[in-house]
């Protein structure tokens, strides 16, 4: 510990602290632009110059290490003169166009200019003008405003993992830009908008739509992945105008993924459903809520009476709130309907955890692992901010290892990896399991058959890595959970975690996947393939479900879609109930680490839209059920989460599953869910759909040898046939895939494809 005195206040700080750290710890504000607590120290803006006793010159607080007995003056004449001098320099070439700048009102330069600037300028020459850059559909540029703090450049390199922005040019000619002809394509690129202290980088979708002082700031929780990022939703005239991060060091730190930041666009989409509608003789008719819900009650009662309660199934998006799911379960239980599923993309009906499946530990604990083996995941796309956090952990010593059916760049150092065919993921885990058993001398459960499993050098290295050390984690990603042998992967991973003494975790895809498990939205049946007589859909649509859903719905007697959108469900539903997206309802999401986070609606429901928990509460009344007298979502929550949540979380396999290595065969498809295909809102956010990531969702990718053997060329087209349907996709090369693997993502572009053998030909 070191002693330091700042502006006469004495304090002690840990060795290695900077003057800025010390000042921050006692709430002394030192003006700054380039300094950011999450980024490396650049010391280039010079705004934080302070006077240090015995130093002949003012020193930058951000880069000056504290020495014992140091005396610092942040507001002395020397310090303020230096700060004012820097401010004058920053302003001479900065356009004073605040009235038309989107940053106006939330601009650090504007704010600090009030304290350190002058009312007039001594600089009378021409000001610098810098050409704007095209950084893609998310980030708007006004580069003339740039003050060269380099925060954005450091962010792309240090946080996002790949330097997509740089500062070529010298002196006054220095400009921030992307690589020539390239845009900024990181899945967390939008954070540079928050980092930019001036209006050089602003939000393209938000541009010119509101001034910051017109906006209300309302807290909410991320609704697009399992992280549970904390949000500030900004609202004007009952409309969500933009989404910003709310700092929560334990979850999203100060960042947001682009998916979380920009999918709000869909909330204001013209495709929103605003009134209840019923299909009457093939024609859609607007009706009142009472009429619509009475029809639903009558239909469900009739079908259960005629065909039994098992003929009805409810399928909910894992982004539904805990309260919605609970009241859906409760109302259907009144009709004895038990077919409930929210794991809409689960690949294997045998997959079952003892209790709700979760990360197995907190996000912070996971990131503090010594070693982590990730199985079957496109982590940067599945959970962008978790990938970011692990990237920082790797810098501090985490050994990150992978078993994956692809070799996607995680933009961090990888301690070991095993790349397998998609249909050999189980075999990959078995190889590591066998090696781990050999290394430790432990035995594996009897239902795991390791006969014929070959241990490669890579598998042995992974086994050695995961059995060594103290704090180890083993995580199954979305590719693993969506795998058709997910239950075997689960069993093998659980056995490996057991042998290695590692914590087993599941990366849940939805904002409330864990909550849905807690409520009981999990069955051992394929509810789509079972062709039920009636389906109740909550926030889920075809692109969330497995192939065959459309046929099942069209073949059903009755489908009620509780949705926010009118465009898709018209084709197969009989009743459309406009229910609130997360922004228009109160509710709770339980994130991947089992943390319940409740939120309020940030805007009034659009038109006749109502929060689904209220709709289901009324449906319960109409069905004449008891216990539906809730007057708040908090009361519903209290019924679900009424004890220690840790007791309802358990990743252990519920029952034994026979695991046995199978041979690889033929051409195989890797069918992960792309970054911007994950839910109904994301799919309707135009800016996200204009990104490079969205483009790749409609591509077939394979390595050069596979492309050649299929007669395909990168840049050409391919006809893909699977399960009796075919689509034509653009072709691109992916050198990270093994031979005879085609990467055909699961999204709207490939919705018609079925499962089973795949055929690919030049188109």
């Amino acid at each position, binding site marked *: 510990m070191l002693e330091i005195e700042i502006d006469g206040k004495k304090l002690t700080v840990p060795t290695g602290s900077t003057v800025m750290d010390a000042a921050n710890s006692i709430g002394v504000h030192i003006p700054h632009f380039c300094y950011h607590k999450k980024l490396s120290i650049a010391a*280039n803006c010079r705004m934080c110059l302070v006077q240090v006793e015995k130093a002949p010159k003012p020193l930058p607080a951000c880069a000056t290490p504290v020495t014992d007995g140091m005396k610092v003056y942040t507001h002395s004449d020397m310090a303020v003169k230096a700060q004012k001098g*820097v401010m004058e320099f920053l302003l001479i070439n900065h356009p004073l166009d605040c009235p038309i700048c989107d940053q106006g009102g939330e601009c650090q330069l504007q704010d600090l200019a009030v304290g350190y600037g002058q009312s007039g300028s*001594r600089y009378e020459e021409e000001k610098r003008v810098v050409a704007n850059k095209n950084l893609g559909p998310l980030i708007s540029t006004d580069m003339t405003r740039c003050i*060269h703090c380099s925060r954005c450049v450091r962010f792309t390199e240090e946080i996002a993992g790949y330097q997509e922005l740089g*500062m070529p040019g*010298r002196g*006054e000619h220095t400009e921030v830009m992307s690589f020539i002809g390239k845009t900024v394509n990181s899945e967390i690129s939008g954070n540079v908008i928050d980092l930019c202290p001036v209006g050089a980088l602003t939000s393209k979708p938000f541009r010119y739509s509101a001034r910051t002082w017109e906006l209300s700031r309302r807290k909410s929780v991320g609704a697009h992945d399992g992280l549970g990022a904390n949000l500030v939703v900004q609202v004007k005239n009952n409309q969500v105008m933009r989404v910003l991060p709310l700092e929560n060091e334990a979850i999203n730190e100060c960042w947001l993924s682009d998916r979380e930041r920009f999918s709000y666009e869909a909330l204001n989409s013209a495709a929103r459903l605003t009134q209840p509608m019923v299909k009457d003789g093939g024609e859609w008719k607007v009706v009142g809520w009472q009429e619509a819900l009475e029809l639903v009650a009558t239909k469900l009662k009739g079908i259960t009476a005629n065909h039994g309660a098992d003929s009805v199934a409810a399928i909910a998006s894992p982004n539904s709130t805990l309260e919605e799911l609970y009241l859906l379960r409760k109302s259907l239980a009144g009709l004895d309907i038990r077919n409930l599923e929210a794991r809409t993309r689960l690949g294997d009906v045998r997959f079952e955890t003892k209790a709700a499946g979760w990360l197995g530990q907190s996000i912070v604990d996971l990131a503090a692992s010594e070693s982590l083996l990730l199985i079957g995941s496109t982590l940067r796309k599945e959970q962008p901010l978790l990938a970011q956090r692990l990237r920082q952990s790797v810098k501090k010593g985490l050994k990150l290892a992978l078993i994956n059916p692809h070799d996607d760049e995680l933009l961090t150092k990888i301690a070991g990896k095993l790349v397998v065919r998609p249909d050999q993921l189980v075999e990959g885990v078995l190889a590591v399991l066998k090696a781990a058993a050999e290394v430790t001398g432990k035995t594996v459960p009897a239902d795991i058959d390791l006969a014929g499993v070959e241990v490669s050098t890579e598998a042995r290295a992974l086994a050695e890595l995961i059995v060594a050390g103290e704090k180890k984690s083993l995580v199954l990603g979305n590719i693993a959970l969506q795998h058709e042998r997910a239950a075997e992967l689960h069993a093998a991973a659980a056995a490996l975690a057991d042998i290695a003494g590692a914590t087993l975790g599941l990366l849940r895809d939805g904002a409330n996947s864990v909550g849905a498990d807690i409520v009981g939205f999990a069955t051992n049946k394929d509810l789509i393939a079972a062709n039920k007589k009636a389906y109740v859909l909550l926030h889920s649509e075809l692109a969330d479900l497995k192939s065959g859903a459309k046929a099942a719905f069209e073949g059903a007697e009755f489908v009620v879609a509780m949705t926010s959108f009118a465009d898709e469900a018209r084709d197969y539903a009989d009743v459309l109930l406009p229910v609130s997206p997360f922004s228009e309802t109160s509710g709770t999401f339980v994130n991947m680490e089992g943390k319940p986070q409740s939120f309020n609606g940030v805007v009034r429901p659009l038109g006749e839209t109502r929060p689904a928990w209220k709709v289901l509460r009324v449906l319960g009344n109409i069905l004449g059920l008891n216990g539906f007298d809730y007057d708040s979502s908090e009361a519903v929550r209290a019924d679900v989460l009424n004890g220690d949540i840790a007791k309802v979380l358990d990743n252990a396999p519920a029952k034994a599953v026979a695991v046995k290595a199978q041979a690889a065969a033929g051409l195989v498809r890797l069918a992960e869910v792309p970054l911007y295909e994950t839910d109904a809102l994301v799919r309707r956010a135009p800016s996200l759909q204009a990104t490079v990531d969205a483009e790749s969702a409609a591509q077939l990718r394979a390595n050069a040898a596979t492309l050649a053997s299929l007669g395909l060329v990168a840049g050409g087209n391919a006809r893909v046939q699977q399960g009796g349907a075919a689509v034509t996709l653009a072709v691109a090369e992916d050198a990270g895939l093994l031979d005879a693997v085609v990467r055909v993502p699961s999204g709207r572009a490939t919705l018609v494809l079925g499962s089973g053998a795949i055929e690919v030909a030049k188109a």
Partner: protein
Amino acid sequence: MTVYVKGVVFEGVDFDDPKHWGIEAYMARGGYAALKKILSTGMTQDEIIAEMKTSGLRGRGGAGFPTGLKWSFMPRSFPGQKYLVCNTDEGEPGTFKDLDIIVDNPHALIEGMIIGGFAMGITVGYNYIHGEVFEAYERFEAALEEARAAGFLGDNILGTNFCFQLHGHHGYGAYICGEETALLESLEGKKGQPRFKPPFPASFGLYGKPTTINNTETFASVPFIIREGGQKFLELGKPNNGGTKLFSVSGHVNRPGNYEIPLGTPFSELLEMCGGMRDGKKLKAVIPGGSSAPVLPADIMMQCTMDYDSISKAGSMLGSGAVIVMDETTCMVKALERLSYFYFEESCGQCTPCREGTGWLYRVVHRIEQGLGRPEDLDLLLSVGGNIAGRTICALGDAAVMPVQGMLKHFRSEFEHHIEHKQCLVPGF
């Protein structure tokens, strides 16, 4: 054109011999004897550094930091890789001495670096050569090949277990890369921008490893010091200003060129060596140490001796030893405009005061030169300069301000005349 007078770097070099730069000629005049002496007599690292301290050799790149002291900062017991770097990124306007060293006596530099590597326990060295000098770079590479072939470079030098690899690196012509940490960044393949210090290169240098960086002339002086002894070197100059130094004399003299003379030689003698003022004109002013050194008027300069202390006392600095001589026909406003433009163009742009301030200084001086100056401009220049100096990451900000301050200190009336009369005081401009 090199004019050898009396000094250690070019001692015995026969410029008329086309192979005067080669290893044979170098060895014939005592080259590599110092290295052999170290390796055969078992001279220790401490002894070498002590000898360097005795010599009083101060860094010849411009800052004048004592070389022996710098070498002693190197953590000799550091377990990982360490680097030795030579700074031949000679970009200071007026300076052209290092160029001549690698063209005419490259082996003196190579031998000096090998000795430095031995003294500090370093096995890898780089010579960062200025981007605009192509033939010089090729000459240095040729000399490296000779040294490797002769067994002075590489593994197990002269049969000992001492290994030292030396590589040439051709820069891209940015003045800022002469700043040692910017040089390191550039050498690493990054944009040449100075690093914030601390940490200093001795603890966090090239690729984050302990690194010592010296100027070409500094290294080239090392063989003499080891061969002849530090005391002898010291005695060539004067106390605290040991040895001889190369002065690159340019401007209005009859014989511009490099002059290697003992430190402490009166300026008037140096001027005589250069054949005096061109066309018999009157001396007006001298920039004694490269473009960033404040200008000194003739009367002060004629009282100075050419060494660190004397020039410093006169209010300027010896710097890299670039002596820019200006006669009575020189317009000081025009001269400052040119200097200010240089710093404006060469500022790396990393930190605010330099990026924004150098352009501002240039524009105001330019305005005055164009006859558009205002009476308040001179105070504005000093004020803006004051906001740059001492506020930047590296010394380029200071370097840009010093010429302004020097000019306004000694020639303010000339600037005032420009502003008042919208034309030059000096006939012909």
